[in-house]
């Protein structure tokens, strides 16, 4: 490390050694330790500009802007939520339960009354348009 190179580094990167080129950092710090007065003069001049630069801050993005950016990203479709399947299962269970209750009701009715539920013996479905007609077609 030479005095000229030390000055070049500080002039370009500032007074904070963390900003100095990685490969030269140790050598530059060693040089500064050995030439404290000369180094401090160079560093002080740069440190005040560093402080000014550091004081310039940029506001972070607002939440709404972040959300807007996120909304522009293509997003993979998620599988359908399981709650829907749960409702379908519940519907099946409900129908089965209703059928069971109806059957139980019919059986208990038969047991209590001793008569099966009545059905119309001569239901209309047992007759047809071909039975019981008295029309005489002989004239034709």
């Amino acid at each position: 490390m030479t005095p000229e190179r030390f000055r070049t580094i500080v002039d370009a990167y500032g007074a904070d050694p963390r900003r100095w080129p990685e490969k030269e950092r140790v050598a530059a710090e060693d040089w500064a330790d050995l030439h404290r007065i000369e180094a401090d003069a160079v560093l002080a001049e740069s440190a005040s500009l560093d402080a000014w630069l550091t004081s310039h801050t940029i506001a972070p993005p607002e939440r709404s802007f972040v959300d807007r950016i996120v909304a522009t990203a293509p997003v993979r479709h998620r599988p359908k939520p399981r709650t829907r399947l749960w409702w379908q299962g519940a519907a099946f269970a409900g129908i089965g339960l209703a059928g069971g209750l109806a059957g139980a009701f019919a059986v208990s009715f038969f047991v209590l009354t001793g008569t099966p539920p009545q059905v119309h013996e001569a239901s209309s479905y047992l007759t047809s348009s071909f039975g019981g007609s008295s029309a005489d077609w002989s004239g034709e």
Partner: protein
Amino acid sequence: MSERDPDAELVARVGEQDPAAVRTLVSRKLPRLLALATRMLGDRMEAEDVAQEAFVRIWKQAPHWKEGEARFDTWIHRVALNLCYDRLRGRREDPVAELPEEAADPQGSPDMQLEARVRDERVRTALAALPVRQREALVLNYYQELSNIEAAALMGITVDALESLLARARRSLRAQLAGSGFSKDMP
């Protein structure tokens, strides 16, 4: 490149359209891109447009991203810088005309906040007055904290040329701030 790209895994998940990865990437990179563009353009609204456009390109590139060619962070800086240059070329006005939004200091007295605001404006004005290549070098190296090698590669120049730009930028800033209370003890 010997080190692993710290963003590679996240970018791969973004490429698979993982919603959680998308949100993480935005929180990680948006403040950086916004700061870069705001300092380059001196205009918050334009900087937000640049950041949004940069993310559109990120979404397109993420499924094809291959680790090892370049660091993802370096690549997005390149994208954002190109977008900034497109806008700077199209400008006829002084970029200082509009004030960018500043970070409010939540603590401190009103006097301290006012002083911080004044200081911030002085630096912002001085930065905006720099030649664009000097500003780019300073923003990349000082504010974005890219290494000298990364910043030089991004700008397509040698490290020596970068150091020259940085030194000239700092000299100009010192001269400009000298007229606004710059001293060895300030700020």
